[in-house]
């Protein structure tokens, strides 16, 4: 139990650090740069109240002290207030509310799929230790060492533009001749799945190889343990011997999953931009184009908290799977 509390403490600390960092980032930046950004904002179609709110958020116009600004910022966060998007004149939270489901659907599905398939494949490849992986290694290297958005370009180009297998733009069909009503209806869902295929494929391709190789290496390391040899010496069926090794090899793999999830999420968000996918990633691009600071920072916070949440879940899974982690309490 103490282990869990300790971990929980770490997440609280990390979350707090992210929130604070977010607050100070805007203030640490060179003043002129921020003035530029705010000057642009004043030119935008915002009502005076909104501009005052922004100035308060960035501590430029208002005469409040830094601690009181910080407290206002914290209490705003606690109420789900992420500020106001300057380019869309809407609360950042409502923009995220409408785009986050797309991202969660796409990135969540693709990442879970890649992790499960990759881990299973890693178990098989590690157990068999035959030539299968030698043939796969160059391909795996390719996918592992190419940045997500570059891979996205290549996928879009080959399977989308030239291959014409799947649409490579937008989250669903918004063409002139499309008559789709967003919602739980057949044509719309089909369209969403079609449009999600290539971005999802990119995320899967980019992360799959990492899981396969990681799990294979853990399998091989674990198979050198005596208890795996004991399982073989007991005359257990092959698959049970493999299961003993896999059950132990999965533990470090879960830690690795937690470690690399922030890279996977960032990469997936960037992939959305390539495919004009209407998720959070696309909003990042919009925010950069329009200099929409509150939106960019709001997204940053949401992503950080998502990553921390995934880490927490991975930690819980680890504790559930490893009796030794439970014991260390």
């Amino acid at each position: 139990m103490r282990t869990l509390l300790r971990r929980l403490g770490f997440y609280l600390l990390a979350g707090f650090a992210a929130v604070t960092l977010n607050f100070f980032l805007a203030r640490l930046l060179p003043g002129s740069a921020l003035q530029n950004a705010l000057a642009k904002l004043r030119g935008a179609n915002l009502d005076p109240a909104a501009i005052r709110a922004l100035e308060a958020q960035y501590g430029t116009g208002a005469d409040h002290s830094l601690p009181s600004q910080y407290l206002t910022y914290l209490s705003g966060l606690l109420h789900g207030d992420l500020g106001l998007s300057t380019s869309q004149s809407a609360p950042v939270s409502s923009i995220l509310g409408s785009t986050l489901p797309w991202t969660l659907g796409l990135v969540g599905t693709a990442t879970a799929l890649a992790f499960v398939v990759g881990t299973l494949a890693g178990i098989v490849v590690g157990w068999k230790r035959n030539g299968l992986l030698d043939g796969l290694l160059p391909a795996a290297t390719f996918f592992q060492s190419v940045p997500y958005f570059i891979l996205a370009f290549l996928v879009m180009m080959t399977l989308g533009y030239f291959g014409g297998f799947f649409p490579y733009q937008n989250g669903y069909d918004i063409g002139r001749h499309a008559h789709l009503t967003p919602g739980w209806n057949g044509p719309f869902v089909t369209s969403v799945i079609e449009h999600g295929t290539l971005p999802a494929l990119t995320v899967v391709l980019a992360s799959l190889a990492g899981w396969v190789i990681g799990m294979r290496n853990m399998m091989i390391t674990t198979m050198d343990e005596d208890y795996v040899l004991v399982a073989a010496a007991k005359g257990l069926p092959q698959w049970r011997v493999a299961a003993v090794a896999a059950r132990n090899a999965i533990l470090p793999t879960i830690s690795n999953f937690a470690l690399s999830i922030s890279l996977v999420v960032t990469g997936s968000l960037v992939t959305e931009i390539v495919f004009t996918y209407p998720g959070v990633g696309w909003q990042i691009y919009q925010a950069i184009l329009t200099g929409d600071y509150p939106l960019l920072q709001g997204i940053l916070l949401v992503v950080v908290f998502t990553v921390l949440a995934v880490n927490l879940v991975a930690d819980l899974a680890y504790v559930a799977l490893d009796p030794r982690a439970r014991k260390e309490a």
Partner: protein
Amino acid sequence: MTGEPVLEVRDLCVDYGVGPGGVRAVTDATLTLRRGEVLGLAGESGSGKSTLAYAVTRLLRAPGVITGGEVRFHGPDGVLDLLEADAATLRRVRWDQISVVFQSAMHALNPVARIDAQLTDALRAHRARLGAAERRERAVELLRLVGIGEERLRSYPHELSGGMRQRVMIAMALALEPRVVIMDEPTTALDVVTQREILDELMQLKDRLGFAIVFITHDLSLLIELADTIAIMYAGRIVELADAQRLFHSPRHPYTLGLLNSFPALHGERVRMEGIPGSPPALTALPAGCAFHPRCPFALARCAHDVPRLTEPAEPAEPDGAPAARSAACWLHTGGEHVPAPLARVLGSTP
């Protein structure tokens, strides 16, 4: 001790690696294990004793390769050459007939599985008709056999002490009442008191259940106490094979003599402990001839180029006239050579 044989190893050769990079780790090993007998395998680390034992069970890891010989197991359904057996046959024989106790129970028990699961998984694989309740009953019985209460059934290995883990390992090995239990330094990781307790229990269990033991250790003094027959290995070869008493009182191979001189006798006169000069050779660079000759105080000229075979010593004759169940791989004993006094003692005479 002349029971019928359960395990016969003939001319077993084991290599590490295949092809030009390969190294021979065990050469022409021949041994017989009889029912209910304790066969000791002793030698320095790297002498090939563990390699031999794991090769016999076909459990030797890559890059180990068996390159010759045969291993005949006398099971309830007749004789089986384990080197010819396919995976399914091996699986059937394993644990049911031949089980293994590993050196470190710390590493030999699955850290994420409970004790009961590890005790019963072999039952599940080999005794399909047993129900869950019967398996559990058997697990309790096995733990009791090694002096552990049934409240430990739901424990994980890390919750047990080292001695307890080794006891669990022994209980596991006896789960299917095998004919042969191979023990690879089963007590080296334990303190002396626990070691003694466990070995005493083990010997009692052996007498009660009648299994035979192949006991691997570098501790020759321990073997002399426990084993019926002892094989001494050096650089991958068995250099002397004899019953424990003869080996102790009248060694024939200079290496055995060296080993005996490296530990103090509890009884009898005080001898100067000498040890053996030099260190064992690397398998990749074995000396020509007898591998021991560079360290041997009695080396002859021919020892440097001719490899001695394991044969019955010609001199001196055994006093009891019995067909000597002993052999040594040493040119001193092939006849015609002067045998130095320490290697010419006979059983029963004062050394």
